[in-house]
């Protein structure tokens, strides 16, 4: 909208000419200067400059709607995650038009969750899916097509009993591999065409943190602001895409060690936080500004050797809550979450929420190994 050329907004031709000489050609250029500067650039009086600004504003202002218009489209506002307790807390599921971040230590299940959501998105609406394609931007080369197929078959055995359905589902997931920051940003900026071509209803970026962290050494001066700017741009583009196409966007993030005074954490987390004072603790990566940019933050962490937990750390609709799960062949399975005591009316700063990492590496080798189809 901001890049609309002035010629097309109804501004008179000679004013356009005068502005063009100063490299002011689009609505964005006009609105980025103050009225007094515009007087000088366009050679207008002050009231005329204000009128010009109003005229240009009319050309690029977004439409006004009401909350009631949004409410009437209630059924299309959320993407069900097929985990009933999580959907209940999120009042329907992952919101459309907003960014949902899944963060946690490695091996906890972030990519598994992403793959599971990919399967769900391709399902027909009667089964709770979006009946659409999925765009999966993979920066860690962690996506496994075999796991996708296995999960689909294990989770919905009757539906995917026919081989054509499996192949059709797999053909709807579009994978893009990007390995540097600039590649990711370029891909995002050109993504509109891909979304329309693939008829995508879900956008997954796995992960945001890996490319950014390997390219920016934040101890060097200037890098921190540059990294924040880049992340801000990515967030803005993703929000624009999710809003315009009304689709959910899922991002994954990593963890970092926060060195500083210990943050007092909720009761259930007390036992596992290290007792020493200045030891620091593990929390979501990418900093405080990024915590502002995401709308919903889900933290996955370890509970014990087998079970893990999803923590809703930041959400505009859900209270702070903890749900236990395990990872099975069919993906994420919630375990024993009928008790509502795990729902607290409290919480803590989602940018400083301590996360439990894996402390031991004891494998239960009798668990079934994944089989190929």
């Amino acid at each position, binding site marked *: 909208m901001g890049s609309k050329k002035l010629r097309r907004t109804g501004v008179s031709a000679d004013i356009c000419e005068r502005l063009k000489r100063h490299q002011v050609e689009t609505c964005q250029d006009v609105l980025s200067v103050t009225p007094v500067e515009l007087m000088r650039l366009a050679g207008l009086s002050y009231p005329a400059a204000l009128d010009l600004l109003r005229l240009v504003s009319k050309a690029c202002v977004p439409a006004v709607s009401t909350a009631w218009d949004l409410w009437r489209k209630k059924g299309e506002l959320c993407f069900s995650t097929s985990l009933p307790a999580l959907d209940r807390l999120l009042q329907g599921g992952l919101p459309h038009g907003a960014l949902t971040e899944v963060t946690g230590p490695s091996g906890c299940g972030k990519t598994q969750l992403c793959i599971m959501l990919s399967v769900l998105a391709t399902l027909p609406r009667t089964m709770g899916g979006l009946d659409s394609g999925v765009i999966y931007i993979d920066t860690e080369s962690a996506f496994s097509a075999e796991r996708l197929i296995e999960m689909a078959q294990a989770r919905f055995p009757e539906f995917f009993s026919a081989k054509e359905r499996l192949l059709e589902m797999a053909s709807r997931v579009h994978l893009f591999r990007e390995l540097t920051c600039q590649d990711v940003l370029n891909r995002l900026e050109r993504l509109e065409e891909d979304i329309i071509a693939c008829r995508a209803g879900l956008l997954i970026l796995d992960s945001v943190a890996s490319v950014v962290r390997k390219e920016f050494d934040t101890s060097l001066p200037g890098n921190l602001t540059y990294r*924040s700017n880049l992340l801000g741009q990515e967030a803005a583009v993703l929000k624009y895409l999710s809003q315009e196409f009304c689709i959910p966007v899922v991002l994954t993030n990593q963890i970092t060690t926060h060195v500083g005074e210990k943050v007092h954490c909720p009761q259930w987390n007390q036992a596992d936080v290290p007792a020493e004072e200045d030891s620091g603790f593990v929390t979501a990566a990418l900093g*405080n500004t990024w*915590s502002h940019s995401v709308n919903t933050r889900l933290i996955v962490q370890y509970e014990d050797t087998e079970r893990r937990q999803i923590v809703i750390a930041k959400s505009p609709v859900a209270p702070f809550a903890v749900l236990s799960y395990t990872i099975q062949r069919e993906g994420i399975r919630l375990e024993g979450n009928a008790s509502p005591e795990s729902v607290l009316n409290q919480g803590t700063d989602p940018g400083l929420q301590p996360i439990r990492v894996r402390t031991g590496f004891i494998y239960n080798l009798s668990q079934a190994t994944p089989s190929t189809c």
Partner: protein
Amino acid sequence: MHRTVPSLPLAPSVKVKLINAGFQVASDLTDMRPLQLCKEAGISQEEAVEVLQMLRDDGQPHQQRAATESLTALDLLHQEQALGSIVTFCSALDDTLGGGVSMGKTTEICGAPGVGKTQLCMQLAVDVQIPVCFGGLGGKALYIDTEGSFLVQRVADMAEAVVQHCTLLAEDTEQKQALEELTVEKILSNLFLVRCHDYVELLAEVYLLPDFLSKHPEVRLIVIDSIAFPFRHDFEDLSQRTRLLNGLAQQLIQLATQHSIAVVLTNQMTTRVSNGQSKLVPALGESWGHAATQRLILRWEGLRRLASLYKSPSQMEATVQYQITVQGFRDASDEHRPTPDTSAVSSQLGNHSKRPRTEDLS
């Protein structure tokens, strides 16, 4: 009358020609006729007429107008008391703010992520619609969303809670009648929503707000959530950003005072490293701190959420605790309020004036 020609709000080319023709001060021009000015300065006839008209508006009648338009502090006091305020439903915070979020002023809400800024904004957008007979303002709200955190399910929950609250309070027939019209559907329809994706759209929307307000005079609250996000990553030239933000702040203050509405802005926090220690400060720089009339900072302290009033021309600095419940933004209390004691709760919605005065000043 002693205004110099370069300071007049005319087009630069016209000013240059006037100066070259020897006109230094505005009083040099007052007795001129258009054709004479046209020949002496070499400007076109329309431009000459424009110059003279502008001077006429600028001259004596304007000064006379100015004399009658000036207000005394007494007039202002009456005005301020007549304006209500928007309750936040957290009585501790309302007391700190002197009744609630003030009308006619800009209020900035800063806070760490997830602390409840958007919750408070949504609560205010619902609370401004409480009918006048219940002590509210009965107005509409405009919500400018730049982050995408506005989720209508949450607003619907808050609206439902407010309707129930009013149902419990309704005593006389006027209130009961108003209650019949107060439904979740009506509350949601009176909440205008604009989604801006970048700073250009935000600036465009603010330039057009005067037109919007004249078309919808019942709007009593404008929320911009958040003003920080679009301005934090697109600018390499920070001085340009400061100029634009200052212009924006000025326009919002003008809107707030001229139309007697409340303007609420949300800001983010940024990390500032000093002496090896990092702490969170409001984003957008030091100069932005002057932009809003009132500043409220929300923060976490361990598990508690605290709200501090940091800047206000009329209220004292204070810190209170609040919490976010299913019904929305509320006081931090450990026990639930069961059927509320109507006298205690109705005082929340009672006619709040800034300084309760029993005697009439006249």
